[in-house]
């Protein structure tokens, strides 16, 4: 299909990016100052892109819904950021990082993009260090690296348990430097509601000022979306509660194809839900699995205190099922195994919806001091929330929605199917296939923002240097503004009885039960029907108090949830269509005799790219076939 030209450069894999850089069109410095770029989202990807584009001399307008760019969800990443530096001399290389990501993603990502992400990881680390990110260091004074997410080399840079915070603040400070110089105009507390497309090209956005409700028009020569993930569709997830899909969905409605929406990462080690009113789940870093052992009671429904359950009465199910990797199997495998045990009635705790993560063996072997040094922050956090000290009693954990591998389809230049519209960071689909490896997202976000987009966007903008600054008093802007305004007014006008949150919770429940860790045809079809009904009820009976002309948090939520119905539906559609199991997407109909995921390469080795056809209409499916020329597709086995 002509829509999907991935624009992968010629040449051998390792040379593609260099070849591309050598051949893309450039924009001369003088012309850059007459080109405007809109960047929506200022997390690690958006902040790094906005500041770098400004350094190059473009006029940047950046937007976020937060009160400050420093609060983007990137701030919450704990574990680390990968780079193929091979500082540990343990045989790591760009090629190995590439292979790990491709294999971890279960062969559903594009080789060339992944290789480039691995290649650029090194530059990103250099830049972040120079920008003042205080990565944890060894006694030698050089950056420390750990093994993370079950890979065999130590390539993860980290800043204690707050890597995301430190990387984001590094990018934020660079962004502020450009704001101070007047090269970036920062619009905080703005929600992007619509994309404006003029003659087939992305030319601007419509935003709502969240303080006074004003609807605003902004034009530019190109628009970049860096709006992060939307795992909040499950209602309870490890994401910050404001995370949403409104901007990418607005782009999708205007013609940007949406890829692999069904690929959702469920993280195995979150603190289980503690009460009915809980609005958010808290992640316990994956690094805990380096020393913690996961188990459930061997007897069904055994409600005894974990101390009373003797060693031989415990089932270390990951060690049992996956002797080679044990507790370090990838996230999707660990999550499914936990669900399997709990659903079979072996779960721990009153709810039966949790498993133990036990450090007693590690404490016994390595001593309390060593464990304390490694995990103090995390243990304290766990104790603060649950009242249980993991030194005395095993943690209880359960899987939770975490990361969206799917997102807007982009070509090698990170451009969507709408010319002039780019998508970077978690908002695009590009690097992680059907499952993301730990510490791989920050790596991608920094690479996209600092080093890839600033090059590739030039290739597009070189064709725009003659385009004068766009007026916003055109028909297209007017139409987009009207659509945004009408939607808001409609939401308030329903004036029903049920809260926005009550709808979000119900939708989350449908998604979690039927389009979560395990899927099957019957449930997916049922879910699609239920979502449709819930959406109808929402538009009939939701209650959004207040008006559109003021700070109105319920209205903000309502906008997000309204889009979640449509996205949720598409997630189910995608999951239904993909009749194989791969990565995080597990179809019960496609499993091996011992219950492992069964990939079907002959039929499904493609990126599913969904095309919007109108509200309530069926999406069209386009396919980008994936070709693997540099790796052999193997069965992912952790036995």
């Amino acid at each position: 299909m002509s829509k999907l030209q991935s624009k992968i450069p010629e040449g051998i894999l390792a040379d593609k990016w260099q070849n591309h850089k050598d051949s893309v069109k450039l924009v001369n410095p003088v012309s850059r100052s007459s080109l405007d770029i809109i960047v929506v989202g200022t997390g690690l990807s958006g902040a790094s892109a906005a500041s770098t584009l400004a350094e190059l001399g473009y006029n940047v307008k950046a937007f976020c819904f937060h009160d400050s760019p420093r609060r983007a969800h990137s701030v919450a990443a704990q574990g680390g950021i990968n780079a193929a530096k091979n500082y540990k001399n343990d045989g790591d290389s760009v090629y190995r990082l590439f292979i790990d990501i491709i294999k971890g993603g279960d062969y559903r990502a594009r080789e060339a993009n992944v290789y480039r992400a691995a290649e650029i990881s090194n530059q990103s680390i250099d830049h972040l260090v120079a920008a003042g990110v205080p990565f944890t260091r060894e006694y030698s004074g050089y950056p420390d690296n750990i093994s993370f997410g079950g890979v065999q080399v130590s390539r993860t840079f980290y800043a204690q348990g707050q890597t995301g915070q430190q990387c984001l603040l590094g990018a934020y400070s660079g962004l502020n430097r450009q704001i101070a110089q007047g090269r970036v105009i920062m619009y905080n507390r703005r929600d992007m509601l619509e994309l404006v497309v003029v003659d087939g090209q992305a030319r601007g956005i419509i935003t709502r000022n969240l303080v006074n409700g004003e609807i605003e028009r902004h034009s530019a020569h190109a628009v970049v979306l860096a709006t992060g993930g939307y795992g909040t569709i499950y209602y309870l997830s490890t994401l910050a509660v404001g995370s949403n899909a409104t901007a990418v969905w607005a782009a999708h409605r205007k013609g940007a194809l949406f890829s692999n929406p069904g690929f959702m990462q469920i993280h195995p080690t979150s603190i289980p839900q503690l009460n009915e009113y809980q609005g958010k789940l808290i992640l316990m870093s994956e690094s805990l699995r380096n020393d913690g052992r996961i188990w459930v009671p061997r007897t069904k429904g055994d409600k005894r205190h974990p101390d009373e359950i003797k060693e031989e009465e415990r089932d270390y199910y990951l060690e049992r099922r996956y002797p080679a990797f044990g507790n370090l199997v990838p996230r999707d495998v660990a999550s499914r195994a936990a669900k399997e045990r709990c659903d079979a009635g072996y779960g721990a705790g009153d709810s039966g919806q949790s498993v133990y993560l036990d450090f007693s063996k590690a404490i016994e072997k390595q001593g309390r001091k060593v464990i304390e040094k490694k995990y103090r922050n995390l243990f304290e956090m766990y104790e603060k929330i649950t009242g249980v000290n993991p030194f005395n009693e095993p943690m209880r954990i359960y899987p939770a929605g975490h990361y969206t591998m799917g997102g807007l389809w982009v070509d090698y230049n990170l451009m969507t199917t709408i010319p002039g519209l780019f998508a970077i960071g978690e908002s695009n689909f590009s690097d992680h296939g059907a499952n993301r490896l730990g510490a791989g997202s920050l790596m991608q976000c920094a690479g996209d923002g600092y080093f890839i987009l600033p090059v590739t966007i030039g290739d597009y903008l070189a064709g725009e240097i003659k385009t004068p600054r766009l007026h916003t008093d055109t028909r297209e802007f007017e139409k987009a503004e009207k659509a945004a305004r009408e939607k808001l007014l409609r939401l308030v006008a329903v004036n029903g009885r049920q809260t926005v949150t009550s709808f979000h919770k119900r939708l989350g429940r449908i998604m979690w039960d039927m389009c979560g860790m395990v899927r099957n045809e019957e449930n997916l079809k049922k879910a699609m029907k239920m979502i449709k009904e819930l959406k109808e009820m929402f538009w009939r009976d939701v209650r959004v108090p207040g008006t559109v002309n003021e700070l109105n948090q319920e209205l903000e939520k309502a906008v997000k949830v309204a889009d979640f119905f449509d996205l949720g539906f598409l997630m189910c559609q995608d999951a239904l269509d993909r009749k194989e199991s791969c990565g995080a997407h597990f179809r019960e109909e496609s499993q091996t005799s011992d219950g492992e995921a069964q990939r079907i390469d002959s039929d499904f080795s493609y990126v599913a790219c969904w095309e919007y056809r109108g509200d309530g209409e069926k999406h069209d499916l386009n396919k980008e076939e994936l070709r693997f020329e540099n790796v052999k597709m193997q069965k992912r086995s952790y036995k």
Partner: protein
Amino acid sequence: MFMDFLDWTQLFNMEINLRIWRQKDADNQGGFVDYYLRNVAEEMSFLEMLDFLNRTLIENGDEPVAFEHDCREGICGSCSMYINGRPNGPVDNVTTCELRMTSFRNGDSIVIEPWRAKSFPVIKDLVVDRSAFDKIIQAGGFISVNAGTAPGANSISISKRISEEAFDAAECIGCGACVAACKNSSAMLFVSAKVSHLALLPQGQSEARNRARSMVEKMEELGFGSCSNTGACEIECPRGISLTHIARLNREFLKDSLKS
């Protein structure tokens, strides 16, 4: 992971009296409104208790209380409430989202206000405008390095002790509790955390003196008070940012004024 498995009714046993600051917008005067809330569970976090209040308000046709929050795990710095006369409530060194109802007792009265500081004007109810913090960072809270110019990440060795100290300062979440705690509404702890973080690292040293001066000047220009070393900020700071950073800032400042 969902609620059906537990008998929640046993747990919802608290009743509390809330007195909350309500203000329509920056142009209108605000005032306290009292709410009596039943069936609060000890297991709730403080913000979940407010979610619960808001649900009740909406279902009764009232306007919910506006408050800021996002990560709900103490790292984004969004949440910000003055609870019973203290930033983030009765527990030392936590954010409001980390506060739990176990810190309160059945029948308690809880007064909730927004941050109070001239430089943080109220936008609505408990939401204040903290953009002054961004402006302070814009005055110099960065290292002037463009993407692409950096040397290798291991080209400089930084002792573990120094890098840990820099990290401790860099942990600031920009919440503003220090300002809310200070009788002068000074932002000195916030400013010193950034100055210290960057001054400790070799990468940040060439701009260190200038940075300290411009950031402090900006702070004063934005209407924050000056520091009189009472230390209230350190007690309330959810990230435990230490007063020693203020001392370091003063040293940088002194070095700069001696030079000029």
